[in-house]
């Protein structure tokens, strides 16, 4: 068959089950539904299960209706999404990498009540051994006295990096959570009730076209004056707008859908419509953009620290480490590589995680953001 590959036309069978709400193609495919492999294709068997009331209509056994196969396990949308997500190799590797970095950062030097197994404090200098070179070896595996090396003052660079990673992760996840919460609430209100809230939301979004986000973040970061909690809070204040816009767009299209109209016609209150009917259907958008918000916060926070407006000495963060040691690239390159690589690994794995989640929620990949 020299059938040249052509991009799928409209006739392609529904390959991804279940269809995503909003794709507009749910169940109206012209092809047989392939998602239950056990379903008998034989027309003689193809009838609805447990129905004995037929017979009036001639030849109901030739019904084109898909039968309900009650022997099949039932999957909710959430379960199907989870299944797709766990099958996404890139996302799983990223999840593992992220968990590894997180667990490592928090257990090594300890955090709060978590006791650390690495006892060298990050603020204490010492004797510089062997020019401060890292003692870490991959093969044969050697951990050594200073796995990531030492800085000029003899501080253990492993402790410093882990401390920085902790700071970055805390800020990123706090911002991810808080801004998702604010963004979802405002986006849903703006999309469902429209009116002045929507107007205000759209103007605030416009604000981010005229003020670069990093610049506003810089001003706010300077305000926070080195504390990570104020920094996280102020960054959340900036971070919610993107998500609010997305949620608003999604809500706008969902509120025109017939199941919402049906709920309104029944007399369902608006609160129940938003929380029971609309928001659960935007969960994909929300989770995906929360992940992306985390990834971008990691970058923004480290950039701010690099510029001197984020985390400040004596505390440390990955961006600050790079900033401090950028001039020692020639002599002690490891001081530059370690924190940079860790930022990259975190941001990359969070981004891939987001991509995996997007694929899991929307197997058609036809989202074009707002």
């Amino acid at each position: 068959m020299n059938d040249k590959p052509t991009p799928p036309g409209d006739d392609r069978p529904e390959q991804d089950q279940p269809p995503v709400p909003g794709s507009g193609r749910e169940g109206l495919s012209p092809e047989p539904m392939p998602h239950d492999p056990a379903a008998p294709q034989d027309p003689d068997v193809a009838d609805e299960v447990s129905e004995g009331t037929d017979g009036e209509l001639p030849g109901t056994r030739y019904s084109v209706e898909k039968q309900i196969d009650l022997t099949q396990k039932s999957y909710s949308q959430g379960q199907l999404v989870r299944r797709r997500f766990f099958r996404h190799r890139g996302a799983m590797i990223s999840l593992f990498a992220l968990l590894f970095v997180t667990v490592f950062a928090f257990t090594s030097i300890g955090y709060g009540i978590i006791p650390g197994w690495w006892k060298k404090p990050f603020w204490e200098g010492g004797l510089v051994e062997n020019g401060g070179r890292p003692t870490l070896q991959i093969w044969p595996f050697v951990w050594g006295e200073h796995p990531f090396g030492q800085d000029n003052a003899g501080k253990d660079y492993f402790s410093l990096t882990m401390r920085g990673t902790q700071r970055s992760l805390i800020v990123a996840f706090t911002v991810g959570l808080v801004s998702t919460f604010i963004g979802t609430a405002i986006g849903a209100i703006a999309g469902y009730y429209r009116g002045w809230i929507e107007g205000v939301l759209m103007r605030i979004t416009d604000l981010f076209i005229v003020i670069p986000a990093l610049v506003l973040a810089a001003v706010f970061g300077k305000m926070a004056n080195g504390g990570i909690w104020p920094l996280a809070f102020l960054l959340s204040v900036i971070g919610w707008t993107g998500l609010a816009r997305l949620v608003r767009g999604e809500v706008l299209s969902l509120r025109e859908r017939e199941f919402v109209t049906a709920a309104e016609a029944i007399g369902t209150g608006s609160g129940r419509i938003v929380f029971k009917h609309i928001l659960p259907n935007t969960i994909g958008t929300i989770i995906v953009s929360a992940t992306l918000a985390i990834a971008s916060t990691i970058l923004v926070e480290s950039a701010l620290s690099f510029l001197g407006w984020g985390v400040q000495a004596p505390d440390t963060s990955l961006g600050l480490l790079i900033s401090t040691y950028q001039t020692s690239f020639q002599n002690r390159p490891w001081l530059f590589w370690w924190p940079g690589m860790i930022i990259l690994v975190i941001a990359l794995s969070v981004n891939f995680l987001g991509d995996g989640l997007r694929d899991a929620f929307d197997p058609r990949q036809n989202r074009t953001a707002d």
Partner: protein
Amino acid sequence: MSTPTDRYAGPVYTGSGAPGDDDEVVLDFDDVDVRFKTEFGSVHAVKGVDLRVRPGEVVALVGESGSGKSVTSMTAMRLLPRNATIGGAVNVAGKEVGRLSESRMRRMRGNDVAMVFQEPMTALNPVLTIGTQMVESMELHGVARAQAAIDRAVELLGMVGIPEPERQMKKYPHELSGGQRQRVVIAMAISCDPKVIIADEPTTALDVTVQADILDLLRSLKDKLNTGILLITHNMGVVADMADRVAVMFKGEIVERGTVEEVLLRPQHEYTKMLLGSVPRMGAGRGQMGISVKEDVDQDAPLAIELKNLVIEYQRLGKPPFRAVDDVSFDVRKGEIVGLVGESGSGKSTIGRCALGLIPAASGEFRLLGEDVTRMSKRDLKALRKRIGVIFQDPAASLNPRLPIGECIAEPLVVHKMGDRKSRQKKVYDLLDAVQLPREVYNRYPHEVSGGQRQRICVARALTLDPELLVADEPTSALDVSVQARVLKIFAELQEQFGFACLFISHDLAVIDLLAHRVVVLQNGEVVEAGPREQIMENPQEEYTQRLIAAAPVPDPIEQGQRRRERHELLRAQGEEVAELQLDDPDAFHGLSAADPEQDQL
């Protein structure tokens, strides 16, 4: 799931009329077999189809969704997605499609075989002018170039009955109506004078009067140009109107074939019989398909809906508001089904939404169950809504995909805080029984059941609170006919049982004829005609109603031929034109396009 034995083993009924070996054939499917590889295994979509189309002949490939009829036709264009595996052979104008190189195949598309698609709204590129899209294929296939191509495009647009063709050439698709766009698609299809046209549901997305015009156009096209047409459709009326021969497809196989009279009038196969038995017929009135409606409506029953001079307007930015419904008055008694008929843009759905209190009225009175909804507080409205049920058109969109079916049906009880968990569950089970669905679907999700089943769930949900009034907005128009028959039957039974009043909105006159007690015909937001069913259906007074009824095809070739002639007479009597290809000299047309096919570029 594709085992070698999944071929249908039952009888295949072959009638007469198939081309012999000596006949000229322009399109020949020989044991065509299509499988799609998917992540869940392979799907056997087409299982060995044989079909031939002669020049100047219309062959209809009939089937419901999932029968593989569109996939079969796409093999002739070789435009299936890459996960398709195709077996057998397809010959177009004597060339075997599977053996052609990609560039020869491209030369064939549009030139030997052309397509007319279902959805005229999306079949044209929105950012290119009609002219650009018309000229493109002619230049590509060397039919005409530069100014000559433009002239020919103008001529073609005139042929298919588009007024002022020169002006339309510079327009963009969104500036034309649906029917006009479909004419443009047809003009594009005949521009290179193909030997065969594949028309995939060419009229499904159109209003019934536009459908009749497009069918007239297609028929004159095959007569005048001697083009073969493969007509893919699910509509038996369209088949009766157009086809010379028919093949019925079921689950990837042809189960019956023959001349249109044989198949439609004397069906042999069970499936064909069932299919034909499920089509509501215009003019056949009550009692079809075992559906019965309680005829005696108490004429003194209180009014469920009372409309007086209702006006509904949509606000538009920077323009005067658009009047969707203009001065409409009618009423619905308790226990009565009133059919609201009209084509797209007639405002019928707008009235339905207003009845549900979803859109405000600009002026006029709208009384529901004796209370005026246009000036009502939110709380009163909620209390009123308890007494009204609603069913929408799209079964895919009208159930929340994140709620299990049981919860969907119980939703009204929860909203109005009625009953406890136990009694709600019992009520849901009763309703599932009533719509003939197994109780086990209670914990399933909407995506796990099919369209017709979903629509039955919607019916159940509408009846949860034992409403006094039901608003049904095109409840069956997204369904296959056999599924529609079943939903209508359940609906009629339930109406008889519960005796609710019903506002039944539909574009399908035959369905209205089957169910309604009284009929209201709408056009452009105004009532054209209203009255008892018998009067409207059998003796319409207004021109528009007459045209509407005349345009609805019936699945009987002889009767439909008769109806068509009557329709043409009616159109002429009303001073309108019958759509046909405006072409006097077919030879000149062929001559031009046969200019020098070998001079093709690419």
